[in-house]
């Protein structure tokens, strides 16, 4: 049991930090521009495929740097030539643009790399067990992923809290017009933030690709969870996104790991005299309900606290 707790905590924190790489960008973009970027998870997928392709051509380490930069450039272009032009037609047009973009990216990716998983592997230099707890070998690559995510988290914090650009970004979160009236080029800041947000999503893709499955449906799989995270944490709140990412990461990991059924958990309450439909539900394992848990959380938080954990506005 202790082994399961330690390993699941590690995995959960890792998944949570990966989610944060994505949700941080998404939530900042949302509160600055008022656009819920449906294509955000697609940038994550682009990161994974760019990472895969560049690894084949020039090796993993250059790819680790180059692929996120490429994704960031794609993001900046989307902001500059797509969103900025649709902005005057209102948020619905912008939303539809990102929605269409998500599908377009998915189709383009499967046209180029096919629909089945590509062979994107953990680099040989990191393909060894980092340590052994109890009987489990914990892979070094996962530790590497964790280290990268934590590093990025710290870098993001320093840039946002300690630099002038960070101040301008934070001010533009609540009052973009006022920031413009003070003589700062808000459009440029938007493009930069969109670029950095996309690059972070891309980075998450590059490092998650080898550990998970790099496939053209990976954006569609992760996207919904991402929205749960930012709504749960409170739209526009970075600390909220951080807490929610870790929380959802841990909840999902633990739910999958705990292989007990409801029956074994609530044994004494067993309604054995009930109809068979009920007993079917009673025997569902926690692992089976794991995928649905984030959405249940979403519904609960929207009912109990519509602005999310640390949000300031209603979703």
């Amino acid at each position, binding site marked *: 049991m202790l082994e399961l707790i330690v390993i699941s905590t590690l995995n959960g924190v890792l998944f949570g930090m990966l989610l944060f790489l994505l949700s941080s960008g998404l939530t900042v973009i949302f509160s600055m521009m008022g656009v819920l970027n449906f294509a955000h998870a697609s940038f994550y997928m682009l990161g994974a495929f760019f990472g895969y392709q560049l690894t084949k051509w020039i090796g993993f380490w250059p790819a680790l740097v180059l692929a996120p930069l490429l994704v960031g450039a794609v993001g900046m272009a989307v902001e500059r030539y797509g969103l900025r032009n649709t902005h005057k037609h209102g948020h619905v047009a912008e939303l539809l643009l990102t929605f269409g973009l998500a599908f377009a990216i998915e189709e383009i990716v499967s046209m180029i790399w096919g629909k089945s998983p590509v062979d994107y592997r953990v680099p040989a230099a990191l393909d060894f067990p980092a340590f052994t707890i109890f009987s489990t070998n914990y892979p070094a690559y996962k530790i590497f992923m964790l280290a990268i995510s934590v590093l990025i988290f710290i870098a993001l914090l320093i840039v946002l809290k300690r630099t*002038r650009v960070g*101040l*301008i970004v*934070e*001010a533009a*979160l*609540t*009052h973009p*017009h*006022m*920031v*413009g*009236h*003070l*003589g*700062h*080029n*808000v*459009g440029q800041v938007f493009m930069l933030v969109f670029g950095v947000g996309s690059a972070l999503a891309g980075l998450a893709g590059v490092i998650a690709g080898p550990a998970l499955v790099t496939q053209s449906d990976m954006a569609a799989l992760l996207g919904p969870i991402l929205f749960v995270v930012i709504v749960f944490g409170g739209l526009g709140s970075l600390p909220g996104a951080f807490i929610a990412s870790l929380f959802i990461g841990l909840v999902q990991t633990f739910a999958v790991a705990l292989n007990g059924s409801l029956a074994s958990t609530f044994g004494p309450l067993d309604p054995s005299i009930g109809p068979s439909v009920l007993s079917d539900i009673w025997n569902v394992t926690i692992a089976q309900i794991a995928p649905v848990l984030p959405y249940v959380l979403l519904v609960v938080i929207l009912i109990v606290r519509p602005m999310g954990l640390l949000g300031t506005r209603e979703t």
Partner: protein
Amino acid sequence: MLEVRDLHAYYGKSHILQGVDLSISAGEVVSLLGRNGVGRSTTVKAIMGEVPPQGTIRFKGQDIAGLPSHKIARLGLGYVPEHRDIFPGLTVRQNLLLGIKNTRRPGKWRLQDMLDMFPNLAARADTPAGVLSGGEKQMLTTCRTLMGDPELIMIDEPTEGLAPLIVHQVGDLIAHIAKAGVAILLVEQKLSIALRISHRVYIMGHGRIVFEGTPDELKANEAIRKEWLEV
């Protein structure tokens, strides 16, 4: 310095500004008076590019109609909006620092001068600006815009919702700005400050200027005050 000719602006289909003409010379203090909803704020917003303007707006000889607001601001036109848009999560000091447009070329207003002028702000320099009182927020937004070294500052309804004592302090601040040689366009509803510090006043009604004159001329003209200002 600022010349506005035949300015029109629309919110959706409603025609808010219907040909506004006004001008302000360097160092001049001008008030724009009128009842709620006659288009005073919209005039200022149209000048700053926040509402799309139609017509001619020239600042220091350059046509600025429709430029993005950061470019207008960088030409030396400062704007303090009516809702005192402070950045609530940032500290008072950070708010003031964001007013600076160019960190390499300091202007004539220093952070320390602002804090010396307002001991209340100095005492809270490192607390989030969201907790300030209405009057303190007004001082902060005005000082923040001054940090950008404007040659003309447009201040929209600075005394709205403030206690009489604070209103007087706001008046002192505006007089202080004027004394430093900065031109001022003051949008107001109350006559007290406007008459105290203005060189000239404009009165707006139904989207255009209906009166232009000195404070003394306005004081003498009861008919105009009755028709366009008094409720």
